[in-house]
């Protein structure tokens, strides 16, 4: 193989600068996806907390701790872009009693939760599959309104 050190160094330097640019562009796309798709799914619910645009691979998971208040209705939206499968999301109370598991509801992307008592909850999100090279954007938004 004809090895040209100068050319290799150039390629390396180009890659060094390209990688952060590509990562930044992916982050921007992910945020755009959240703004355009996830927030729309909130409908007449007001955004609670902040929007989360997460770059996840198959098999990766995140955990969210949130407080929900009585007499309010919450809408949880968890969606993924076309590069990865629809994530599984599960909501449990602080004693680990499961409130909702979308795996039991055809992996639906929203869940409306009328809250009758104030409590801390855990939201667990996992992208199905094992191919760590398959990465995509997962959006999480929570909306709230009065009962």
């Amino acid at each position: 193989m004809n090895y040209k050190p100068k050319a290799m160094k150039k390629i390396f330097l180009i890659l060094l600068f390209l990688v952060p640019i590509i990562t930044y562009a992916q982050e921007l796309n992910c945020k755009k996806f959240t703004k355009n798709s996830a927030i729309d799914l909130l409908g007449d619910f007001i955004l609670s907390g902040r929007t989360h645009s997460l770059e996840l691979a198959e098999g990766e998971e995140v955990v969210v701790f949130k407080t929900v208040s009585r007499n309010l209705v919450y809408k949880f939206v968890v969606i993924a872009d076309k590069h990865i499968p629809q994530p599984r999301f599960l909501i449990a109370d602080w004693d680990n009693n499961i409130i909702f598991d979308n795996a039991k509801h055809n992996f639906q992307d929203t869940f409306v939760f009328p809250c009758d008592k104030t409590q801390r909850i855990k939201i667990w999100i996992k992208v199905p599959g094992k191919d760590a090279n398959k990465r995509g954007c997962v959006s999480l938004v929570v909306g709230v309104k009065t009962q």
Partner: protein
Amino acid sequence: MYKRVFFYLGIILVFSLVSCKNEKNSDLNKINVDTSDQQIDVNKAKEIIYMLPNPTETALIIKNSRNTFTDEYLCPYQYVDRYNTSVEEALALGIYSTDLSFLTMYGENQKAVEYVSAVKKLSERLGIIKVINDSLITQLQQNIENKDKVVSIISETYSDMRAFLEENHREVLAAYMITAAWVEGLYLSVNLVDNVKTDTTLIPIIVDQRYSLDNLIDLLKVYQKDENVKLKIQELKELKDIYDKVKLPMKEEVFDALKTKISLIRNSYINEL
């Protein structure tokens, strides 16, 4: 020459990767949720997110139990020029965000305009220029009569401000903003209680805030290497000590202790001591 450049670049890359990993793993809790087909272990999570109610949610909760509006307890918008350091500005941004949400939730949109200006000033000083720009102000002015639209815009703006700080490696300032926003919500709630013995709507809400307080302390603990954050955690832990004594029906002396403590914390945030 190139060899040396690559060597140093390599070292920088390795250090940046290591520091990112440490940050991520600094506050992992060991909680297992047992499901039918697998164990969910928080330690396996790529990321742990503390989602605190934003000021709009707090204002919505207060509005649910109090229909009458008063601006008596809001932080005067004229105070905006008191704040000079980034910590003071982040705290004030949180306080004004809650006041702004409170005003818009009660449809006090004309008054809210002054608070939008205060929030804009602070966000500019903190470098959050992309979030509150002229088009947002125009959008608010165009919808001034549409309460729901204004509430929604304010809520998304707060979310964007928080996201901007967190995504630009200024998570500590975001944590200050969130803390101050929560403190202001509780401060307004306790001050709206007329009679502890007869109140049946606001008192339960105030009691329930203990859950958010736990989440808030957990969030701040992630940044406790910062001495100032440590101080804020200590103050909130003292508030939590009072909360630990709270039972329903709430005793007047416990309520007074709670009110005094939250007022002290809030007034220190707005330099009003």
